[in-house]
């Protein structure tokens, strides 16, 4: 299974692929090769994320997969049909930007897929026990207008 823009085709994802995703991962939107949306759930009983579904937005450049996609959480308001909050995590800003090594050009590998990225983020959530945002979250969220790919994260925490 490879939810993944293919090089020789501009076709969207074949329908049969949607039925074979790992547990807790579903495709919301994949009708073009620039932006996909995925819903993920944390499967174990981590109380921070139980019974919640989160939405990820993938933005692909034309150098994908040599270069990483831009991945961030997006929020759907609680009043909508499918409310999607931004998960609380010491490496996820409240605007949905994720500080994760494998999404940087240094940590990325072209063998990664949308599916494998979703699984990494699932496990990043699963492993977390701190109910907090990153330090400096409110300042960053108010004043950051950069896109995730242009931000230079420092990966100082190996415990994620």
């Amino acid at each position: 299974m490879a939810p993944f823009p293919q090089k020789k085709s501009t076709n969207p994802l074949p329908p049969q692929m949607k039925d074979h995703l790992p547990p807790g991962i579903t495709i919301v939107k994949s009708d073009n090769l620039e932006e996909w949306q995925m819903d993920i759930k944390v499967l174990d009983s981590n109380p921070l994320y139980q019974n919640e579904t989160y939405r990820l937005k993938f933005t692909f450049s034309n150098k994908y997969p040599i270069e990483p996609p831009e991945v961030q959480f997006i929020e759907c308001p609680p009043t909508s049909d499918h409310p999607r909050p931004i998960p609380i995590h010491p490496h996820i800003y409240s605007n949905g930007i994720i500080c994760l090594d494998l999404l940087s050009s240094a940590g990325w590998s072209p063998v990664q897929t949308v599916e494998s990225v979703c699984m990494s983020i699932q496990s990043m959530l699963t492993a977390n026990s701190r109910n907090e945002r990153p330090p400096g979250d409110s300042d960053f969220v108010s004043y950051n207008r950069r896109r995730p790919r242009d931000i230079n994260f420092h990966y100082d925490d190996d415990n994620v």
Partner: protein
Amino acid sequence: MDQTFDLPDSTDWLPTPLSLVAPLESALRCQVCKDFFDNPVITSCSHTFCSLCIRRCLSTEGKCPACRSSDQELKLRRNWAVQELVEAFQNARPSVIDLARKAAARASATEEAESEEPAPKKRKVEAVDGPAAEGVRTRSQTRGVGSQEDPVAIEVIEDSNDEEYVPEDGLVACPICNRRMKNEAVFRHLDTCTGEPAPPKQLNFGSLQPASQRPKDALNKAPERLPIINYSLLKDNVLRKKLKDLGIPNTGPRPLLQRRHTEWMNLWNANCDSKTPKSKRELLRELDIWERTQGGQAQLSGDVTDTVMRKDFDAAAWSTSHDDDFKRLIANARKKSEAQVRTTIPQENVGTIQATDQLASQTTYQPSSAPVVKHTEAIHAAEDAHCL
């Protein structure tokens, strides 16, 4: 399975009784492009990729994408066995998947119709359910567990071995005419191979032997691989001349020249790995596609060497990425005007057009100028402290 469009994937097998073919097909696909291997080559860490895919990866970061160990494109070797596997599998695939789908449809039909006969039904359901349940595995999982793929792969190799006996003489057969020769010679031979079967050995002593002359002629024609250039050693005009000599466009700023040369080298050398090399004209066409999608007309936001704004300039991305700078400029400008100094617009190295545009549009962001400066400083401090 109704297929609205034709995009084969390894998951096609999962709903059929042959769900165990899914990991086999997955193993025959490149982990970078997810397509069937195209001119497969093997790295020194024994991972196989399409020639072009791995060359692009190595020229970007010099590491194997699968295991992150360092490698050089010089060490890549063609993987003929994988190439043959892929070709054989692709040839067999349409009829096999057709058969498998029909079997799946038949199984589900009998399941519904023959509910009165418990014994045969049970057997059929088992046949369908067993492997199907087993088959709900993803590519990434099966990739990691080599032992699960091996038994399947071995079966197929045995099949093909039955049909073609391969003597172990250290030589390889030309895939077209089956003549046996040294591995190094095959590629050159392919340039001239007419597909005629090998002539009987040395029956015509003393007579003309045009066939045996051919490989020597081909020596001259064999495309030579392009060497890697250490760009830092070349001056601009030398690099431009090099591109011109190669027959590719030599215009544009320096970083683009380098990236264009790298892409051309990757395309060219990958073509050298091909059993059926493309013409230079075709490669130039591919380079032109690259030029339009990733080259001169699709620059990164980091490259700000152009002084003239491009037609497809991404104003939104520009304004977001330089928002802090603009805010600071605006703040400075206001301070100056408050101090009754004649207002001048501070210039960035990028020119004033964007800056003035932003002056107009950015004013909505901030009620007063002083806090902005303070907060951007706070953000920079936070960047140092944590992982902004």
